[in-house]
Structures are given as C-alpha cells and as structure tokens.
C-alpha cells in the first residue's frame, strides 16, 4: 500500500507522479503521468475524472490508455491483429492461444467519444455514414475503422451474430458494406432445454440444450480454423487447452480482486477502477500477460488496504449492484459522490468472468462459455444471476444503466426490475448515461441520491 487511499484529480495525480518519479518509481514502458494522454491523445475526459491514488491504479490507467500504441507496436513487430466484435470474451481466448496473434475489440471505440469529449467527432462521422444518434454509441466504431486513428486496421475481422443487439449487428453490417470483410459466426439465442432434450450445464448457472451447444462448438471450430490460417499454425486441442488455462489465470485473478473489493466492509478500490479492471477480462486489453500483472498489483493493493481497514469509500456507503457498462466513465465517480459504492456488476460480459471448464474438450468448453453470455439468453436468466449475486454480496440497491439507443435497454429495465424488486425487495433505479453526461449530471445525481436514501431508509427499518 503506497499511501492513504483517496481519489485524485488529474492534476493531483500528475503532481503525485512527479513526486513518485523523483522517489524512484519504476514503471513499465507504457508508464508515465496520466496528463500526457490529454496532451498527446486528446483524452480530455480525464480532466473530469477522479482516480484512485495507488501506483497499481496508475498502471491500470496507463495500460488502458496505451492500447492503440501497443497494438501498432505489435504489428510493427510482425504480429497479426484480429478484430473481434460483439462476443465480448470468446474469440480472444482462441486468438491468444496462437503464436503472434493479438486480438482486440474495435467495439472499445464506443468509449472514444467519452474519453475525447466528442472532440474526435466520431459520432458526427458515424451519422454521415448513415448511423445516427438513435443507435448505441458503439457507432463510433464505424468511422474509427475508416480513419484508422484509434486502432489499426485488423488483419481479420470476426463478429458474432444471431442473438446479439440490433445496433451492433446493423453497424457491423454497414461496416462490411463499406468494404471491411467480416467473418460472421452464429450465436443462437440461449434457451432452457426441454424435457426431451439433452441438458448441458454452462458457467454462471445457466443451461442449454445439446443441439445449441453443438452448433456453437462447430462455429468455434470454424473460427478457430480461420485463426489458425492467419497464424500459420493449427489451433489444435493442445494449444487451445493451454490458451484456456491462461485465460483462466486472468479470470481467477480478477475473481480474487472482485471478491476482495466487493466483500470488504468499505471499498478498497473505487468503482471506476473496478469497471476498467473488469474490462481486462474481455480481451486482456491486447496483452494477456501484462493484464495479469496489472490485475495482480490491483489485488495486492486492495488486500493491503482491506487488511489495514483503509478504504477509499467508507463503510457507510450503500452497497450497489450496477447493470450494464456506462458510456461516460464519469458516471462511476458520480455513484460514489452520491453515497454509493460498487459491490457487484454485470457489465454485459459476466461470461468473461466465469472460469472456462478445463476438464472438457476445449472447443466444447469454449462453446459453453460463449453460450453463458448474459445478453444472448432470456432476460429472466440474467435477472436470476444478478439476484444471486445481490444476495451473495448483500446488495442494498441496483442501478440499471441504460445505453442510449441500445436495442435491449428499453425492454430490459422492466424485465430486470420486476424479479429484483419482487424477489429481493431491492430498490432499483434506471438511469441513461450518454457518452458525455455533464448536462445530465443534476438529474443523474438526483436519481442516484434518491436511490441511496431509499436504501439507507431500508437499513433503518
């Protein structure tokens, strides 16, 4: 533990960084003061965020904000780049199992308008390409492909389709029409097996019929074969098994971090850093081994703080479960400003947090993981999982964060709220977070504060 836990502004962090550097701070090659990302990359949003003051958090942020640069370096060193879209955690397991292959999510460009406070004009450019503001902010991906400023053009583009959100499917199709060939693979809508069907257990407590599992396994093998061609060597059982073991190492580390932070009496790490840390599970922020180190350092910091009973958010804060990722990172700071703390999350990729089964043939194990995606099944399944997590982490309130324009959001609020409110009697609030939420801050704050008040009132009764 490096200092008393607190959240710093960007200026405070840069001053602290200078101090630490003078004291002999050792950083990885992508390290440095956070302020340089504002100056060099135009990540203006950083000026309005509050960051955890640990060196581990500094490394996390530098790791996140240098992804574009690291990808270009990897390409310059002869590695092949795979753009994986929508599946959030499945294809990268295969890609990283092969030598000299690196997978990343162009979907990640959805945070670029937030980070650059729309100075990138990606959203305007998307509109000019026929995808307007009625679509999810992931539309920023479309012009980002054309400008190649925010990520390099991948050597292979893979996208899951079928039971995926309409925005993404439509945008990806538009991308293909603009000349970017896509290797599509089918992910069926997960359903509960019927009596006469063979039932397969999936991670996360879900089930699926054998026919669906076979379908996804075949698709995994098809994609695996294409990745093998790109890498110049076959993705065989041995390689994939080793890839799954490595993926599980990252997932175990993240589980330890989540358990440490979410079960602690106070928050040893803030919500914003936890959101970023969880994102690492999806594609390791383009560097699997480094992501493991970043997560291990964060865990060590969190454990040290818990042991010392020194928290960045106090024990009186309301324990909140957050559903869906936020388009504006500032919303996570706001949660704490309103008296809450993050104690559970479903950022739409819980299947990337669960361990992949290692005692099954590898493609089948991967297919089971893909089918456990919370977004491809009935909303009631997702609500059940959230409910179980709420019980386990003694959650006091739930925030369902809507993504503007996303096809699933108008429906899922009600469908999630009813089982949570009825089964657990938890107060639930829905908020919509646009890429830059400053104009909505008073409304968001009022809604979140009302939620915290309700939760505190329930404590008393």
């Amino acid at each position, binding site marked *: 533990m490096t200092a008393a836990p607190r959240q710093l502004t960007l200026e405070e962090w840069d001053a602290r960084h200078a101090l630490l550097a003078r004291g002999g701070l050792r950083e990885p090659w992508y390290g440095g003061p956070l302020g340089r990302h504002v100056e060099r990359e135009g990540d203006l949003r950083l000026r309005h965020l509050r960051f955890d003051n640990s060196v581990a958090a500094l490394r996390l942020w530098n790791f996140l904000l240098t992804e574009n640069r690291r990808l270009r370096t990897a390409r310059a060193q002869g590695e092949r780049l795979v753009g994986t879209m929508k599946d959030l955690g499945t294809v990268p397991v295969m890609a990283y199992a092969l030598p000299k292959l690196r997978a990343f999510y162009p979907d990640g460009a959805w945070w670029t308008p937030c980070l650059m406070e729309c100075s990138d004009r990606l959203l305007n450019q998307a509109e000019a390409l026929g995808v307007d503001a009625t679509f999810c902010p992931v539309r920023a991906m479309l012009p980002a492909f054309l400008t190649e400023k925010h990520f390099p053009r991948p050597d292979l583009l893979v996208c899951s389709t*079928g039971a995926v959100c*309409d925005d993404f*499917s439509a945008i990806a199709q538009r991308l293909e029409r603009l000349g970017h060939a896509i290797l599509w693979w*089918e992910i069926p*809508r997960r359903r509960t097996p019927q009596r006469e069907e063979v039932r397969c257990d999936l991670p996360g407590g879900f089930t699926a019929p054998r026919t669906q599992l076979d379908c996804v396994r075949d698709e995994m093998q098809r994609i695996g074969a294409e990745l093998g061609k790109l890498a110049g060597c076959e993705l065989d059982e041995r390689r994939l098994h080793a890839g799954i073991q490595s993926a599980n190492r990252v997932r175990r580390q993240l589980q330890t971090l989540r358990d440490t932070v979410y079960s602690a009496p106070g928050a040893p790490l803030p919500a914003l850093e936890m959101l970023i840390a969880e994102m690492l599970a999806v594609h390791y922020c383009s560097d699997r081994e480094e992501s493991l180190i970043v997560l291990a350092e964060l865990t060590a910091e969190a454990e040290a703080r818990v042991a010392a009973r020194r928290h960045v958010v106090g024990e009186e804060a309301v324990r909140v479960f957050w559903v869906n990722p936020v388009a504006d990172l500032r919303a996570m700071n706001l949660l704490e400003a309103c008296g809450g703390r993050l104690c559970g999350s479903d950022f739409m990729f819980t299947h990337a947090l669960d361990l992949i089964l290692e005692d099954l043939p590898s493609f089948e194990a991967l297919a089971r993981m893909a089918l456990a995606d919370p977004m491809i099944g009935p909303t009631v399944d997702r609500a059940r999982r959230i409910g179980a997590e709420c019980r386990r982490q003694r959650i006091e309130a739930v925030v369902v964060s809507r993504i503007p324009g996303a*096809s699933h959001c108008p429906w899922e609020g009600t469908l999630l709220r009813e089982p949570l409110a009825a089964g657990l009697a938890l107060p639930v609030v829905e908020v919509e977070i646009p890429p830059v939420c400053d104009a909505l801050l008073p409304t968001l704050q009022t809604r979140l504060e009302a939620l915290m008040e309700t939760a505190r009132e329930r404590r008393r009764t």
Partner: protein
Amino acid sequence: MEVLLTSPWIPPEWIKAHGLDPRGAWFAEAARAGAVPEGVCAFAQRMADLARPFSDAPIVFTTACDQMRRAADAAQADGGPVFLFNLPATWQTPTARRLYHHELARLGRFLESLGGRAPTDAHLVEVIREYEAHREALRMLSSWCEARQLAEALAYYFDGSAQTFPGRNGTAEHPDSLPHQAAAIDQASASRRVPLALVGGPLLPAQWTLFDSIAAAGGQVVLNATEPGERCLLPALPPPFPGQRPLAALADHYFDHAVDVYHRPNSRLYAWLCPRLAERCIRGIVLWAQVACDLWRAEAASLREALGLPVLVVEAHAVHAGGTREATRLAAFIEALHDCMRPSPAGAAEGWGSGSTDTSRTPL
C-alpha cells in the same frame, strides 16, 4: 386452434399439417394495445400485446431481431403460450441449416403439446402442395397486380384464408375477378407516375394507406419488398431429392429463400432486389422502417450506395401512416424524381413498364 406467426420465414404449412390454423400476426388485433415505451419497436410491442388477449392463441416469435426477442421475453413473463423460434442470422454454413431444421422439429413438438397431431409425410406433402398452389397464384398475380391489391392478396395468404381476396370496395372476391379491376387502372396516368420500390419491415393493413399516399403524390409502388410483401413470397418449391423427407425439403426451401435484412451478411436481400429494380425501371426507394428498428434504418445508406437509387426513409408510427409530414416528404421525394425522369428515345416518359423489357408488368 389459431397459431399466430410473427415471421414469414416459418412455414405455415408445418402448422397447418398439425391440424392447427396458422395466422399471420400482422393481421391480428390486440384487444388492448399498450403504450409504446421510448426506444421500443412498435411492431415488437404490438406482438407482445397480442400475447395477452390471445392467451389461448399461441404466438410464434422469432429471434430475427433483438426487439422481437425481448418482446418474446415480455410475453413469456405475462404467462402467454409463446414459442421463440431461433432463426439463424447466418445462412452459409451447414451449422446454420441444421439449426433451422432443429427449430422446425422443436416447433412440431410445441404444436403437439398444444393438441396438434404430428403429420404423416403424405399429409404434409398434401398441405405443402396446397400452399404451393396458393403461392403460385400469388406469384402470377404479382406479375401484373397493383401493389395495394397484391398486399391484400398476400394478406389473405398469410392470414390463413386461402380462397378469397378482398376487392377494392372491401368485399371478398374470387381471384379471377381481379384482372378486371386491374384493367380499370388508367394506363396513361400509371405511365406518368414515378415507379418506386417500397422496401422494409412489417407493413400492417392499417398502414396500407401508404400506397395511397404514394399514389396521391404521383408515385406508384411497383415492388413491395416489405413484410409480408412480395419479398416474402417464396419461389416454386422444387421436387424433393430422392429419399428426402418432405419436412426436410420444406425446411431447406424456407432456409434457402428467406430474404431479409437480419441475415449476416444480408447480401441475399441485395441479390433479390437488384434484378427486380432494374426489370421494373424503379426510380427510387421508399424505405419503410419502424421508429426503433436499427436493422432497417441502418440499411438506408447501404441501399443508396449499392443500388444507386435515391432512398427516402419513412418511419412507421405506432398506429398508421399517412400523416401530413409523411405526405409532404413523399410528395417532395416523388416530385424530385419526376423531374429526373427523362423522355425515352421514343419520346414517352420512362414510367413503369414503358422502359422495361418485361412487358408483362405493363398495367393493362
């Protein structure tokens, strides 16, 4: 028992062969229509609403889009008998084909659970032939019939009433009487109208006023590629392979000929549109999309680029089309296209039929 179908890509033959009555959900009326929340597709909401009053009429939803999947979730939460058919988005792989076959078999088990009888092959063949004959009549009709009349005729097919078509005055008529009605179309005025394609998602009977709005603005829909329009009319069913079961042949036929925007890639849609647009000398496209339908709305730019035609997006409202705003936009669009129509070498305007090699399309 009626079984409501929300997609043209589920064979009604299969339901009929089980002794149940397939009915296109486009034509069913919800007893109590709920408000359409912000961001929700009005058509998907309507389908969810149908689950309530029709609690004894099962609804078959599909996974073609996220909104319909969520509508099925909502309908299931309300306790209605709902079947969610997994329509694969991909179509190039044996895996996707197998998935479609499995779903059809699963639908069969669902129908049996409702009291349907598993059909014998012979009975299924008989039903398939009956539907094929009806489709054949519709295909012939589509070669010359006015768009609104064709929509009405297709409605009768998808609504499960095979024998009669509606006349313009709302009375039921035998199909043979329709040529006489078509003959009444003023050929001269038709040739002056701007030939348009109407492309897009579900177009409900209450929204057929769109045809009239287009006509009033000086246009004419010569290709209705909405749902359930001509796009949803399958080609002739080929004879089954030796040893192929009729259900397998039926499944393959639907799987191979579904033309829709949700496919990935959706190149089949373009492959279907291209020759028809050329053949019918179409000058512009009216893209009909539900307000919250990402799949169709995102296609506007691609249609424009790929087909080289002007595209006007007309958004469906929850109840009906034909408001003042739509009328004005349509009028401006058609007026602009009309100005672009150049006299043909023979001196006649290049309207529907006059510049086409397909003379069978010329209205009588």
